[in-house]
């Protein structure tokens, strides 16, 4: 069995989805943890410090490349698999199978993933592009803050950027919808990834199912609360 045979096989391709998926889940943990710092209500100091810490560490910079690679691989592989799977029944049924044994979101991972991709493009445009490549039109020149880290460096004020972006109710709604997609995507994807990499002990699968659902709801809700709380002015 060569690498090529493995990664072109149906299970091999699913393995790629699972591994990248689990990697993206770990990224979400970091991301949600860091972003939760906005609720420190210290005018973004903790958040910006954290963001800067991440931005200045070489390991994280490298991981950022890996993260993008993960997103791209997960996306492309997902689209390829979805297209392949959709082509396996050229003549369809007159009466659809329906919900027995499966949830709509489990059957809609391709759709949810596509929504997430669109969201992600918007999200990257809002935050990653200005912070890494310089500002964009609707972000005003950034306020300089002197952080007492002794280095006296100037930072990109990601916090302020968030505050500005989430003043637009439409964007807030789009972000909340993105988080809902994420919740459903994770609701299935979390447990499914572990099944795909071969975890087959019923006890652990059951644990992972609960963990996955909890994770999907809590993480997505936390993300969704960020634009909402900023928009409603709960963050100071």
């Amino acid at each position, binding site marked *: 069995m*060569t690498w090529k045979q493995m990664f072109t096989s149906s299970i091999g391709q699913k393995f790629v989805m699972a591994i990248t998926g689990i990697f993206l889940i770990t990224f979400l943990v970091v991301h949600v943890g860091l972003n939760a710092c906005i609720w420190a209500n210290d005018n973004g100091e903790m958040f910006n410090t954290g963001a800067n810490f991440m931005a200045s560490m070489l390991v994280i910079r490298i991981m950022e490349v890996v993260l993008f690679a993960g997103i791209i691989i997960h996306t492309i592989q997902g689209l390829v698999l979805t297209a392949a799977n959709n082509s*396996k029944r050229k003549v369809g049924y007159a009466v659809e*199978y329906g919900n027995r*044994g499966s949830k709509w979101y489990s059957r809609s991972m391709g759709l949810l993933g596509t929504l997430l991709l669109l969201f992600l493009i918007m999200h990257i445009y809002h935050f990653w592009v200005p912070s890494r490549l310089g500002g964009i039109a609707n972000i005003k020149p950034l306020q300089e803050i002197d952080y007492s880290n002794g280095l006296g460096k100037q930072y990109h004020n990601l916090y302020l950027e968030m505050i500005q972006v989430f003043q637009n109710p439409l964007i807030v709604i789009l972000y909340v919808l993105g988080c809902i997609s994420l919740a459903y995507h994770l609701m299935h994807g979390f447990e499914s990834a572990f099944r795909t990499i*071969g975890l*087959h002990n019923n006890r652990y*699968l059951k644990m992972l199912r609960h963990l996955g659902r909890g994770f999907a709801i809590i993480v997505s809700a936390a993300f969704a609360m960020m634009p909402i709380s900023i928009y409603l002015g709960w963050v100071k």
Partner: protein
Amino acid sequence: MEHYNMNLTLKIWRQKNVNAKGGFETYKVTDISSEMSFLEMIDVLNEDLINEGKDPIAFDHDCREGICGSCSMYINGKPHGPWKATTVCQLHMRAFKDGETIVVEPWRANSFPVVKDLVVDRSAFDRIIQAGGYISVNTGNAVDGNSIPVDKDKADKSFAAAACIACGACVAACKNSSAMLFVSAKISHLALLPQGHPERKSRAINMVAQMDKEGFGSCTNIGACEATCPKEIQITNIARLNAEYLSASLSSDKD
């Protein structure tokens, strides 16, 4: 149980042969007893059709006691019909009400081409077994049966997986037309027994390769197969197949 008779409208897929274009035909059947099995209801319809000089509906069936795996009808959107853990031959007409319209379709999957009407070609399953769904032991080579003790729990799980009747309902139910439940049942049956260990790696690799070659889709762990399987084969077997396959392919020595 109260018996009752019913009149039904049937919309059934008719297709003369593999190359012909098929379509639905509508039939009425009257005075169908709630005691009949679904296939006996089709028998009644066929008898009517023959008396009218028309072609009866072709469908696969044989043992009519839920074990041979021949019968294969997609009834009102469900493989084997509305009851759980049941084959069509064990589905009885009590499941339906007077005046109902029932839509009957063949299994749909590229890998299961329609042969005629409701008959499909499931030989892909045989070829998957040929790829490795066995233990290579020639007749006469066996040691005493009790010289290989088998953990009872594993033996029971192995049996539960081996109960698969290869009807193909899992494929029919799966939105990806995936045969993973079928393949995983065989992989689990043999991998859980010590006798199956020497070949477990090549078995997993070869059976999955054949499954892909036959044109079945991949598994997205949605669970429709498990809910449809007349023998209640668990989806956990698919996870076990993934483990078997990945450990076999990752530990392979080829570049």
